[in-house]
């Protein structure tokens, strides 16, 4: 029996594969696209080389004072010299290991939650959420054998992270409760929740912080002062919870009525039907919205300057006001922007990962 062997396939015509073809299809398909492409190339040529030479090639990398910055470009020496302050604020340098330990504990503690086969994840997670804040507070603030570090010494990225994480951790549960309350059948609870949400959504965060710092002390007895950071944290949590509540309510409304009825038909009470049927679906749906709120919160932490707390951005500003480093504000802002971007980008990537992981076919 003869077997028929096919000739090998001919390669596709030169013009339809490879870089040239791709460019023809995507960059120069018609005269308008060609024009836009050329314009874009011109813009890149205009912006990128000076930017690179300022940030890298002509930049000053070594030295200890402003006088060492002799080259045209950026003076990264400023960032190097003040790096500790940008990260920890005025946390005493010999105690900064405590901040490091707090961060490592968080990373190590959270890690098991990302392992799919970790046994009894829920118990572990709840335990972690209860124990970790206590440990973190003890490490950062001191007491019980550790030297006390007043919150006025906290600053830099550390303060940004403290405000953001406490804000997120506090606002999420409170927001969920408020969202459920707003959809409650009990008028009293509904009115309270609606009033709360509408009040906090109606005022700008900067006003909340300003009030907590400027007005509150006037109503307290003389000499009694509340910790500034605590005031800011409470303000941030209440403010953000209103936003989270509305995002979650959006998710609750998107759940078809049949789900509620099915839960009721199974004989589940209010809390169990919410906890087992409705909320898991609703929260999953609103992940993008929640993460959006949190990214906004992360960036809003810089508003605490209004009450004299120094987060990353404000530490940079303050360091740039030092007579020894005057004129270094641009470098500082670029650095702060980079750090903020890394964190916000990280959050958004994680939210996308979470969406994919939890996706059970709601997507169209």
């Amino acid at each position, binding site marked *: 029996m003869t077997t028929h062997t096919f000739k090998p396939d001919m390669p596709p015509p030169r013009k339809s594969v490879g870089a040239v073809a791709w460019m023809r299809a995507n960059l120069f398909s018609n005269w308008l696209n060609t024009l836009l492409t050329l314009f874009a190339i011109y813009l890149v040529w205009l912006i990128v080389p000076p930017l690179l030479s300022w940030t890298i090639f002509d930049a000053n990398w070594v030295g200890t004072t402003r006088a060492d910055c002799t080259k045209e470009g950026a003076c990264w020496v400023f960032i190097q*010299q*003040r790096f*500790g*302050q940008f990260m920890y*604020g*005025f946390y005493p*340098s010999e105690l900064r290991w405590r901040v490091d330990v707090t961060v490592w504990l968080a990373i190590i503690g959270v890690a098991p939650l990302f392992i799919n086969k970790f046994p009894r994840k829920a118990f572990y997670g709840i335990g972690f959420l209860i124990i970790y804040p206590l440990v973190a507070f003890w490490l950062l603030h001191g007491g019980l054998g550790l030297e006390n570090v*007043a919150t*006025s*010494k906290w600053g830099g990225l550390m303060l940004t992270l403290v405000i953001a994480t406490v804000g997120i951790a506090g606002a999420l549960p409170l927001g969920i409760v408020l969202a459920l309350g707003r959809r409650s059948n009990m008028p009293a609870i509904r009115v309270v929740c609606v009033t709360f949400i509408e009040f906090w959504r109606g005022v700008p965060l900067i006003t909340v912080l*300003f009030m907590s*710092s*400027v*007005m509150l*002390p*006037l*109503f*307290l007895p*003389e*000499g*009694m*002062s509340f910790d500034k950071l605590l005031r800011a944290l409470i303000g941030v949590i209440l403010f953000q919870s209103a936003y989270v509540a509305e995002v979650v309510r959006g998710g609750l409304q998107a759940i078809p009525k049949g789900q509620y009825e099915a839960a009721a038909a199974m004989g589940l009470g209010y809390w169990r039907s919410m906890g087992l049927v409705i909320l898991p679906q609703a929260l999953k749906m609103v992940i993008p919205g929640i993460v959006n709120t949190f990214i906004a919160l992360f960036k809003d932490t810089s508003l605490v*300057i*209004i*009450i*004299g707390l*120094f987060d990353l951005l*404000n530490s940079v*500003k*303050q*360091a*740039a*006001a*030092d*007579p*020894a480093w*005057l*004129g270094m*504000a*641009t470098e500082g802002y670029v650095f702060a922007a980079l750090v903020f971007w890394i964190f916000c980008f990280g959050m958004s990537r994680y939210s996308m990962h979470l969406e994919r992981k939890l996706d059970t076919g709601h997507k169209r």
Partner: protein
Amino acid sequence: MKMVKSTLAILTAATILGASGFAQAGATLDKVKKQGFVQCGVSDGLPGFSVPDAKGNYQGIDVDICRGVAAAVLGDASKVKYSPLTAKERFTAIQSGEVDMLSRNTTWTSSRDAGMGLVFTGVTYYDGIGFLVNKKLGVSSAKELDGATICIQAGTTTELNVSDYFRSNGLKYTPITFDTSDESAKSLEASRCDVLTSDQSQLYAQRIKLAQPNDYVVLPEVISKEPLGPVVRKGDEEWFSIVKWTLFAMLNAEEAGVTSKNVEAEAKGSKNPDVLRLLGADGEYGKDLKLPKDWAVQIIKQVGNYGEVFDRNVGAGSELKIERGLNALWNKGGLQYAPPVR
């Protein structure tokens, strides 16, 4: 100093203070002694006045006044805790007792001195609104600035003062307002404006930010009075006197030639009776202030006399290199004058 007055805060402060009465005499001194430190309200970052260095230690003239008070009361200039305050929250912080004294480049004005339950203890720095120009312009006086484009920081009383000055002198100008001092410095450099205006003390800091500081000059004129000084609560005369005399001790020491280096020798064997009285070697003048005998020695030894403080923070020994000008002693052509100790 120059920020827009927070009318709301002032109104509220006024009503509340009206209801709750003023501080008790002696209360602040007792509180400071009990807590073991002076809680001092400072600026959130103003070159030469109060700004933290790399180690987080605050530096500046305003800061040194607080350190002087701590040295006088507690014998240790390092026993100060700083509260960085924004321009808006500073008065509430002192009114509510959150800080024991406010040393935050605050301009002494009648409304603040009389209407807010506060009292100024003296003038640590005579400031005023000035002009920074490019030497190429060939201008030597503010009167020649007709038709100039002026960079101003938005939301400060500078705007008002500049407009008053130009109107009263019949000059025309175009204002360009900026939000931060960094932006206005960059604009001057890019020649978007001919003149940069701000408090004179800050113009020197602005000048350092420029790529070619030597091409720019601060004009000699000052178009407004901005006397900056420490503030305490009204009604506590004891504490008021202590803060007031801390500055006076520094000024008297400079006048008598007592410095941080020779203060101990002078306290033992000065020929000048004024010095002996100031340093507690003769008489009991510290007692009147409810302070230890060597209060002034501690101030001078640990912080320095006024000249040293000025020089170290804003003068020739600093990056800013501001002339003494109005802040020279009265017998050297300036305005700084302290009553004698006797």
